[in-house]
């Protein structure tokens, strides 16, 4: 109960109840534009509880849009709901993970702007529109969620630390903890062509590529997803997701090293290494 309340916290509560009841279950349907401006990409795995709300909000983001749901490893009604509501559904019987799901969705997308959201939390469309607008009309190539996670303590969560450090290495400390690891974020078609689909599978790598290849990366709007994320159990004592994401950041650092040299282009000042003997 507690979790459900929390997940719905960001739902558009300002809307009068009557209008939502006019869209009674079974009535509304998404319209997928054959030549859309915006593609909304939603990887989903066993999310029947939130699917309906997520689809409804996704459909309200832009008049010319398509909604792509990448259903993977689901054993519940996720796929049925998505089909019933008229989304483009790509079904995989086995689990893919968020990142691979996003890559597959992106490959199928036809829009000029790609908006990535998750299926496990309902975010009202008014909180999604800024990302699309930033890419569609404000010249951003990548519009990021300007949310950095909790930073009030001395020692933050490993993932927060990794994001800040990567941005510092990329000489973009202004991005703070904003990263392609977090949803919602939107990409331009140009960004996708430059960084390639494969990089989407490792979001920090895609992020590092985008910044260092000169794409316009902007934190545009803050959605506190950390508070909306469901608390998942730790698997065997450690948090495997933290470990995965931190490792992803290392891959990004490695890419920078391969591209820019062992110091990623940073100064050695007046260090006289010739004086050293080992």
């Amino acid at each position, binding site marked *: 109960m507690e979790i459900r309340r929390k997940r719905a916290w960001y739902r558009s509560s300002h809307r009068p109840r009557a209008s939502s009841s006019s869209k009674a279950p079974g009535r509304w349907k998404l319209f997928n534009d054959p030549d859309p401006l915006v593609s909304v990409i939603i990887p989903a795995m066993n999310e029947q509880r939130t699917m309906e709300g997520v689809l409804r909000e996704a459909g309200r983001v832009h008049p010319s849009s398509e909604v792509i749901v990448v259903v993977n*490893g689901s054993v519940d009604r996720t796929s049925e709901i998505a089909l019933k509501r008229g989304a483009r559904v790509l079904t995989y019987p086995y689990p893919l993970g968020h990142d691979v799901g996003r890559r597959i969705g992106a490959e199928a997308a036809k829009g000029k702007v790609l908006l990535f959201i998750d299926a496990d939390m309902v975010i009202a469309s008014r909180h999604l529109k800024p990302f699309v607008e930033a890419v569609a009309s404000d010249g951003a190539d990548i519009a990021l969620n300007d949310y950095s996670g909790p930073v009030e303590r001395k020692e933050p969560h490993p993932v927060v630390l990794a994001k*800040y450090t990567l941005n510092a290495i990329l000489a973009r400390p202004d991005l703070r903890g904003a990263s392609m690891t977090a949803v919602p974020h939107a990409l331009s078609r140009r960004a996708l062509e430059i960084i390639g689909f494969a990089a989407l599978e490792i979001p920090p790598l895609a992020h590092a590529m985008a910044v260092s290849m000169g794409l316009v990366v902007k934190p545009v709007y803050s959605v506190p997803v950390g508070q909306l994320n469901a608390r998942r159990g730790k698997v065997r004592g450690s948090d495997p997701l933290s470990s995965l994401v931190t490792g992803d950041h290392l891959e990004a650092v490695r890419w920078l090293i391969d591209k820019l040299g062992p110091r990623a282009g*940073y*100064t050695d000042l007046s260090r006289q290494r010739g004086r*050293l003997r080992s």
Partner: protein
Amino acid sequence: MRTGTRTRMKGAPRRTSRRRLRQARGRRVRHRAMRFKSRSAIRRKRRRLAAKSSISLLERTAYQAGMAQAAAVQEDQRTREHLITSFRDWHRQFGRGGQSLSGLWASANAYNKGYSAVPGTAGSVIPLLLDKSASAIVTVCDEEKTVSAVLAELEKLPFREIIVVLNGCTDRSFAEARKHKNVTLLHYPERLGHDVGRAIGAAAAVGDILLFMDGDLVVPAEQLGAFLYAVDKGTDVALNDISSWLPAFQGQDSVTRSKAFLNLVLGRPDLKSNSLTAIPHALSRRAITMLGTAALAVPPKALALAVLSGLKISTVAKINVIKSNRIRKGNTGEGNAVGKLILGDHIEALGEAMKRSGVRLGLTSQPRAELAKARNSG
């Protein structure tokens, strides 16, 4: 002391004043603290108190012993070596400080004072009992104001040698350092660059414990003792713990964060933002042999290699070097030149670590699909 809740008739006026309530709460808390304290905790506390009071006794006896030992030999035999050996003998026989550093420090300090109080005594040194020999390496670049004070503190400790690496000095640093008799000077007219001086000093050092200092930061000998003692007792890399003086994460600079990130991915999050970049720190001979002195020129790289080589790394003292760090042109503000240098050092360290143990440094590359499955079922 009875502090149970008093029964009150329903609806009867509350008569206890706020002050009374506060007092009662205080009593309850104190009472609870006593009740939950285990017997061993009480015993520990008593022992601690006893140790505290006995230190003053220990100091008194050490002082007297020092005087007696100095008086027992001819004036020309009262050297630093004699001071140390006689203290060692005395400590072995009568020392009550045990193995604790504070006890040892107190008695050693008092012994030295007693010894030096005898007229005509030449050497004064705090005879911190070390099984191994120690070298101090001080890098100096235009630090005429502080270098003498730094060396004076170091001279209080039983170093086998103090090596001063002067580089690119255009002020009176050289003359200041020359005033100290027992100091080995390595003089480079041109600047060696950041941390290169440390590597060169380390290459020249012969001790088994290497303490690294900068010429611009005066640290009391008492606090430096902890580094020597830790390495003497088996630590390979003894770091300074600065975490007490750091702000919350949002107020930290990129350099501090990158230090914490490096430690995290090396599997040592317990080291927090502590690093070989900061001084003081001490290394064992074993560490020097395994890492090579050249590696010290890029401190984060040396730390990464030390972790991956399985060296024993720990923080051994808390010295506030942040407040006293000298502000120079180019080391202040976000994105300053030195900050960029250190950031580059950390990238180099990550790259070096990746060469040794793979790109992900042993962090999970568990297939995302499996992870998704595990999380989804959780």
